[in-house]
């Protein structure tokens, strides 16, 4: 009994430490002061200011939210398409050597240090911009660059989420669709894609989350393009590093992410209990 209490206490302490900074932020997002020493009571003012655009960082926040969502959405779209097609193709390839090479290269961005991937992509973008003489530095060009960079490290996760679904599904259904007169493309769309849909959805959500969270690759590859991560980085050296409106913004984001995680993890749990 004593042993059990000790173990529960240990687990609880680690959990409390993990959540302390997040809870701290949520609590103080409802206050107009940065610490308990001068607590003034509960207020929604930070949220009202955030939505009416009257807070101190309003413009930067707006820009960062738009940029982050834009890059996240297109990264998610592109990596889901590439990863799903890649998984279907990889599953159909019989040659062991090609299969091994394909999945090994796919895993490089997952294994490699993020900073190395970032430097490698920076070299590639330098090469491209000097060879083709494109360096206008426009908003769209920067956004496209970021989308490509993010797609590089997001697609492997899509592929690895779709592949197990393909391995579980029955190849004969696709064959039957062909026998019954479907073109390969139609059979793919009507039979294979619906079958692996759960994997595709999780892959899309995962790459969206990874993209909006990314900092290292973003920071190294683009300048003067504000995302939520670079915005946070810019605040690092202040005495009270989190301004009130930022706390409110990230409290909202926290609950959105929390809901997304529940969606990502719940189907997995079901399949575990089915076993």
């Amino acid at each position, binding site marked *: 009994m004593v042993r059990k209490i000790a*173990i*529960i206490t*240990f*687990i609880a302490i*680690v959990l409390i430490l*993990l*959540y302390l*900074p*997040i809870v*701290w*932020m949520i609590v103080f997002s409802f206050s107009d002061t940065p610490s308990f020493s001068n607590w003034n009571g509960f207020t929604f003012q930070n949220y009202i200011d955030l939505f009416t655009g009257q807070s101190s960082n309003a413009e930067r926040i707006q820009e960062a939210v738009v940029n982050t969502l834009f890059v996240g959405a297109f990264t998610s779209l592109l990596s889901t*398409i*590439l990863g799903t*097609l*890649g998984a*279907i*193709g990889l*599953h*159909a390839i019989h040659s062991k050597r090609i299969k091994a090479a394909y999945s090994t*290269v*796919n895993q490089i*961005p997952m294994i*490699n*240090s*993020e*900073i*190395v991937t970032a*430097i*490698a*992509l*920076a*070299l590639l973008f330098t090469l491209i911009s000097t060879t083709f003489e494109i360096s206008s530095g426009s908003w769209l060009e920067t956004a496209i660059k970021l989308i490509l960079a993010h*797609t*590089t490290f997001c*697609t492997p996760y899509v*592929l690895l*989420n779709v592949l197990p679904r393909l391995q579980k599904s029955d190849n004969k259904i696709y*064959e039957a669709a062909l026998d019954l007169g479907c073109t*390969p493309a139609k059979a*793919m769309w009507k039979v294979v894609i619906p079958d692996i849909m759960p994997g595709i959805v999780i892959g899309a959500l995962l790459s969206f989350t990874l993209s*909006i969270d990314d*900092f*290292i690759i973003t920071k*190294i590859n683009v300048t003067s393009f504000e995302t939520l*991560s670079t915005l*946070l*980085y810019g*605040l*690092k*050296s202040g005495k*009270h*590093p*989190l301004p009130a409106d930022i706390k409110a913004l*990230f409290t909202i*984001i*926290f609950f959105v992410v929390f809901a997304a*995680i529940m969606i990502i*993890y719940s189907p997995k*749990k079901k399949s*575990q209990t089915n076993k």
Partner: protein
Amino acid sequence: MRNTFRKMLATPYALFMALFIILPIVLIAVYAFMDKDGAFTLLGNFKDLAEKEALPKVIKNSVIAGLSTSVICLLIGYPIAYYLTKKEFNRTGVMIGLFLVPMWINFLLRMVSTKAVFTALNIPLGMGTVIYGLCYEFLPFMIMPIYTTIQKIDKCYIEGAEDLGATPIKAFWKVTVPLSMPGIISGMTMVIIPSITTFAVTEILSNGKLMLLGDYIYSLRTYNLNLASAISLALMVLLAISMIITNKFNKDENGGGIW
């Protein structure tokens, strides 16, 4: 014939990988052996790096931070992973989920909030707070592989050891720990290299006083891509070696990555 269409679908991503994964790595290798003017140099960049005054200190800090982070993560993560595989502590699987949620919250946000907490509590920033931050960021990466390997261990082995007269403690050290070794090894590799190459954690939690390898590469990037490439290449070689060692331990492929 019937497979041709499906095989063709692998092409777009194959081309994408060639351009965005393989070519950039080739570029790193090229830049690492090239001087600033573009001429070939075998060891020039590495010599330059060795002469940098800041580098020995950066490496020393990285070794200290990387080793302490991985050891602390192992000491905290192993018991947690072990007890969470037991029904009495993790009936529905929700507990393990609670340890994974912070991983999905922007790490900069967690680090900046941690700094805010430390500042409010008047805790001085330095190596201690940096290691705290790194453990905070990487603990889930230690818990997950160990959790999945322990889950896969057949309970019969432990029961067998106890039937044959081992005390539960002895059975734990002689059976559970050796069988969970693949998880420990992949946990260590998933913590140690990312923790020394992460960038910004050190800067935030030491107020810019300390630098680890990641921060150093970032600082080089702005004025000397060749030196940054040389370190990156060295890091990749280090990573490849550690992967080979990991694979030796995980021959049966149940190392249990996070995904």
